[in-house]
Every structure is written in structure tokens, then in C-alpha cells.
């Protein structure tokens, strides 16, 4: 498992109960993931009746946590102690792979 990065983050413009004193710029974290072939086949069969493809839901959930983690590491490296206004973006790359991006504004709060 990845080590914990203890930086508060929020997708609102402020961290509740704290004031922003310094801006450290935009931080990003991204990852490109693909599921293994066997689960792709399972999803292909589920495609027949439609509905949720659980393998992909889990894949994207895991990857998004990884992207978030990388973003927080970036923020820590810049000397920030919080990230505000976190946004997520996703795009699909060829071959069943998806890119997950998390970005936000690294700040110093007090």
C-alpha cells in the first residue's frame, strides 16, 4: 500500500475553519490504467445485458485514488499544507486504458 500523505484537501475554495496565507500554485497527479484481459472479457459478456460494469467501476476508483495521492505528494513537495478546489478529469486512451487526472491549488493554511 501507498504511504499516507496527511494533507487536508477539499473541493471547495477554502478549508473550513482555516485561512489561506499563501498560494503555492496548481498541483496535478495523474495515472493511466488498463484492466487485465480476463476482466475485459467478463465486462464484454456483461455488455450483453447492459448495466453496471463493476470491474471498470473498481478500476477507475482505485486509479483515481492513486492520482489523488500523487497530487498530494506534489503539494507536499512544494511545501504546501493543504490543497483546495480539487477537480477530477478523465479521458480514455486507446486500448481500454483510461487516464485519471486530479488537480487543485496547493496552499498554505493557518
Amino acid at each position, binding site marked *: 500500500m501507498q504511504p499516507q500523505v496527511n494533507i487536508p484537501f*477539499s473541493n471547495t475554495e477554502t478549508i473550513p475553519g482555516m485561512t489561506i496565507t499563501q498560494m503555492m500554485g496548481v498541483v496535478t497527479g495523474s495515472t493511466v490504467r488498463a484492466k487485465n484481459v480476463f476482466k475485459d472479457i467478463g465486462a464484454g459478456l456483461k455488455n450483453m445485458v447492459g448495466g453496471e460494469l463493476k470491474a471498470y467501476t473498481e478500476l477507475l476508483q482505485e486509479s483515481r485514488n492513486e492520482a489523488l495521492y500523487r497530487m498530494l505528494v506534489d503539494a507536499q513537495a512544494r511545501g504546501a499544507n493543504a490543497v483546495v478546489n480539487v477537480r477530477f478529469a478523465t479521458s480514455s486512451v486507446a486500448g481500454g486504458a483510461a487516464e485519471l487526472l486530479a488537480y487543485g491549488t496547493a496552499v498554505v493554511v493557518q
Partner: protein
Amino acid sequence: MERLSSSNEVIRLVVWIVISLLVPLLPWLVSGIGTAMYQPKKKQELLQREQAFAKTSDVLSTLSKPLSGKEVKEYQVLMTNVVMSPSWIQTLVGGILSLFGGEINVFTKVVDWSRREAQQRLREEAAANGYDEVINVRMETTTLSNTQGAKDKTTGVEVLAYGTAIRY
């Protein structure tokens, strides 16, 4: 005697033709029946889960500050996602309908369904962790690409809902 056997042969020929016509359509048939059995059941379940939360006002809001103006004691960014795909038969019908343009109802339903599912999961996750409200909710939709070129037609739409869950 001879007439009987010839009429038997005609019947056998007709049955054979019908079967040989049906075999290529079999996947679509199975898909159609499977869709009709599976999807309404899941949608009904979702509706019941939504109704369990409908008694109070909606906990999700897109505002960046809570309306009540109370002090926030605890917060956490929550995100929930769901990947849904139209069934083969829905893809086929959608493909035919898209020749004529206008609204493609079968696809609208799938995307709407996944968005409701993602929102409902956000409500449930907030409730499970003891949060009062989720503010600044954002939603995002992505299509997943075909895998292995054009052979495997596995495509899906991913809906992500995220927001800041708060506790007073």
C-alpha cells in the same frame, strides 16, 4: 402417401430455414431478453434506495458553502463513480435511430440511470460516514474506449460524482 411425405418435407424445409435465419440473430435475442429481465429490476432497486432518502431534503448541493451557515466541524472529499454500458440490443437500436438523428432515447436512459446511481451512492456514502450534507457536488461523464480495436465492442460511460461532505 406420397403427398403426405412431400408436405412433411416442406414443413421440415420451412423449419430449417427459420432456424438458420434465427441462429445469427440469437445473440441479439438473448441480449434483448436479458436486458428486459435485468435492467428494470436494477432500476426498481435504485428507485427504492432513492425513495428511502427522499423523506428529508436532498443532502447534495452544488453550492460551495452550506446554506444554513452553520460552522463546519469535519469535512472530507467523497467521490463515487459508476461505469454503465448500454446492452447490445440498445446499441443496435441506438445505431439505427442515430441514422435519423434527434434524441436517441435508449442512450439517454442509460446515461440518466448511471448519473442517478452515482448520485445515490454519494448520498449513501455520506450517510454511512455520518456526514450531514455534501456541498460543492460536481459531476463528470467520460466514455470508455473500445478495447482491442473494433473486435471487442465493450464500451461504457463512466459517471463520477464528488463533493465535500461536511458535518456540523
